[in-house]
């Protein structure tokens, strides 16, 4: 019992820290025009490569400095969060819906449905994900919706595998047999009895997947395959920062920190939620 209590407290702190960061980032993204100190696209060659606020030579109003075109880094990060979050939510949700549904069917019904779905997943996962994403975007063309579709198409297998395994475990439990004896149909049992027991896993995975979507989007914008407009993206800022690393390290380091914190928070937030909402773990 003691172990349970300790880990629960640990997960509580994790949950609040991760949730706090995500909330902050989300609010910044939602109200970007209000909170961003500068126009993220405004170039000013007089202010190029200004250092962050604590270093000498910094200018007030440019908290994290500027890049080689004199654009405010903090504002670019805040506007970049918009695209990151849109991709995270849309892509993860789409992947979750497709993957969880197929996983539930595969795990609960078994038989030939399971065989077909599992083989498709095996084949799917044989593709290297990033190459697959680049290929898909090359085919679909760049743009926000292409990125979202590409991530969903690649990552539904993650949900499918985990939910399939969870469902198989639950379907063997006596309460499922009891429900059959009570006279429920198979689909009714799947939705009413089994699904609530795999929801904690779905939630944890969904959060994790949002983090992964953020990374994949950053990778795609790093290789200039994400959105084609001038809107700042974290991956794009990192790519630009790489070019001027010797003159202005902050252009590379701050977006990296933002990216890592966000991805880490998504995964920890998911774990924390699972621990909190799973009645058996609770």
């Amino acid at each position, binding site marked *: 019992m003691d172990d349970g209590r300790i880990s629960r407290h640990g997960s509580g702190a994790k949950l609040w820290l991760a949730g706090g960061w995500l909330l902050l980032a989300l609010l910044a993204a939602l109200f970007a025009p209000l909170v961003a100190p500068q126009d993220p696209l405004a170039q000013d060659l007089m202010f190029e490569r200004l250092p962050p606020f604590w270093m000498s030579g910094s200018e007030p109003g440019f908290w994290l400095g500027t890049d080689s075109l004199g654009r405010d880094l903090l504002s670019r990060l805040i506007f970049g969060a918009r695209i990151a979050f849109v991709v995270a939510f849309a892509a993860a949700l789409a992947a979750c819906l497709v993957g969880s549904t197929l996983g539930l069917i595969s795990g609960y019904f078994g038989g030939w449905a399971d065989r077909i779905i599992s083989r498709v997943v095996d084949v799917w996962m044989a593709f290297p994900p990033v190459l697959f994403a680049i290929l898909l975007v090359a085919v679909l063309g760049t743009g926000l919706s292409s990125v979202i579709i590409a991530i969903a198409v690649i990552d539904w297998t993650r949900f499918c595998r985990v939910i399939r395994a969870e469902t198989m475990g639950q379907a063997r439990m006596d*309460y499922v047999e009891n429900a059959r004896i009570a006279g429920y149909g198979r689909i009714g049992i799947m939705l009413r009895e089994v699904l609530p027991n795999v929801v904690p896993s779905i939630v944890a995975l969904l959060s994790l997947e949002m983090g992964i979507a953020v990374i994949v989007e950053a990778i795609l914008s790093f290789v200039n395959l994400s959105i084609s407009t001038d809107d700042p993206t974290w991956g794009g800022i990192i790519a630009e920062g790489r070019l001027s690393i010797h003159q202005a390290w902050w252009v590379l380091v701050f977006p990296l920190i933002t990216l890592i914190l966000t991805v880490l928070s998504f995964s920890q937030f998911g774990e924390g939620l699972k621990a909190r909402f799973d009645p058996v773990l609770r």
Partner: protein
Amino acid sequence: MNAAVNPCLDIRSLSAVLPNGVRVLRSVSLSVQPGEVRALVGESGAGKTMIGKAVLGVLPPSVRIVEGDILLEGEDLGRLQPKARRTLMGARTALIPQDPLTALNPSRRIGPQMTDRLVRILGWSGQRADIRIRQLLDEVQIRDPDRVTKSYPHELSGGMRQRVLIAAAFAAEPRLIVADEPTTALDVTVQKQILRLIAQLQREHGTAILFVTHDLGVVAKISQKVSVLYAGKVVEEAETAALFASPQHPYTRALMAATPRYTNPFASLKPVDEAVLAGLASEIAAADQAWRRPHG
């Protein structure tokens, strides 16, 4: 046919095989009269649980019934369409399971789990189901039904969970309850209370019970008739009192000798004799031979 003269449950020479051709049930015949408790005893692997599952229609997919009929109140279950069968079984049968922890859905509260079945399968109103559940929880001596119905299964003790399951089993007034070793997963002290509770509810509701157990002490306490099972074959069946007074089959005698007695706790237990097992083996082999001939 008049329903009153039909036995509640009638199993007629039921045989089931595994994919490798091994018979797990060997022409099992047994019947349970309305309001009667029939015990099914045997060692692990004797097929007791398999019979229960066959009756309730939840055999594992790998086990195939190759012969025999199961009749519930004169109705041949094998002849029914799956949907009709489900509805009939949901209304007329129930299970008291072995493990009260896994038999309840861990992520749903007790109350809805219990009322759900009444509302969805039997078409009761939610209010009527609620009242009924409270009444049953009272009958199984749960004093704080409010707390229990709002709890998740893991918040209750094993004994409480088993009481909940007993209440749920009796709630729809089924004609037949299959009790699959309902006391095995419980503490010895709780076992006795649960057994007494099942016996009491059985008497008050007049429900027939197929009571699966490996414990002869339990058999003596609760049942009117016994079937002794070995390797999927009924080796002896009798009135409970008669069986204990004069067991006919050597295996039954050996089982009784192997039961620990409180009157002499220091006596060592007697394992079932080699000669008895050899006799059983030849009996089973002969039965299989006779069975194979007409079935090819």
